[in-house]
């Protein structure tokens, strides 16, 4: 089990990633440190494509929770796209879905990020 983190793009207010693999107790610190490097004081939206995440356990949830709290304090948000049924179930169990902005496809999320970029410029 491993996790690959693909940094799709960053703008002044957004960080966009795609995760591939398992977000478990061994790999979650990798995501935590990547986000710590990429998130700046100006970041308001962290967008994560979950389409290739095979599973997420509480260690992965903690990283998402931490990022969500960080963004909410700034009036920002965490967006996710292409969650599998199994991954979505885990988020539902811990009742965090209402706090997330969820997109069915990467195209929808890209459109949303593009709109933020238009506002930035």
């Amino acid at each position: 089990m491993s996790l690959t983190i693909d940094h799709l793009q960053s703008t002044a207010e957004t960080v966009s990633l795609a995760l591939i693999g398992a977000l478990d107790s061994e790999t979650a610190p990798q995501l935590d440190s990547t986000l710590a490097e990429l998130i700046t004081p100006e970041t308001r939206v962290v967008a994560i494509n979950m389409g290739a995440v095979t599973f997420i356990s509480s260690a992965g949830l903690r990283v998402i929770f931490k990022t969500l709290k960080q963004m909410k304090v700034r009036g920002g948000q965490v967006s996710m796209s292409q969650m599998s049924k199994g991954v979505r179930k885990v988020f539902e169990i811990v009742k965090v879905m209402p706090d997330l902005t969820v997109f069915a496809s990467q195209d929808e999320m890209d459109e949303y990020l593009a709109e933020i970029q238009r506002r930035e410029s």
Partner: protein
Amino acid sequence: MKLTVSPDDSVSDVLSATTTALVGAPDEVAHECQIIVDEFMANMKFHVLPHAPDINWVLELDKSDSDVTIKFRYSGEKFDPTPATTSVNQRPIEQREIGGLGLVLISSLSDEQHYHYHDGVNEWTIKKHF
């Protein structure tokens, strides 16, 4: 299949062994058993072993035609996890603590749980039907 896990075993090796042991089980069951195993591993590595590095612990996993049984044993002080598994805080994320999600996941993803403590050994048995 019986997995005997020691503190030196990596999570990824144990999860790979879990995947192999669950071949033939529905994907959803295998996926949720992996989460349960990861929660056990994380609990031992981050909460138990730092205080008791020489502790013995064993993880057993058995698949039958209709269910998966995951049995987890470790020696040490009594710790009944079941009271901590019952509820999830529903407050907004800003007001919630980050920890405590592992036991909730184990409870929510399992169909049966049994805890026993005898002769200085904690034993937690999880069953998942399919």
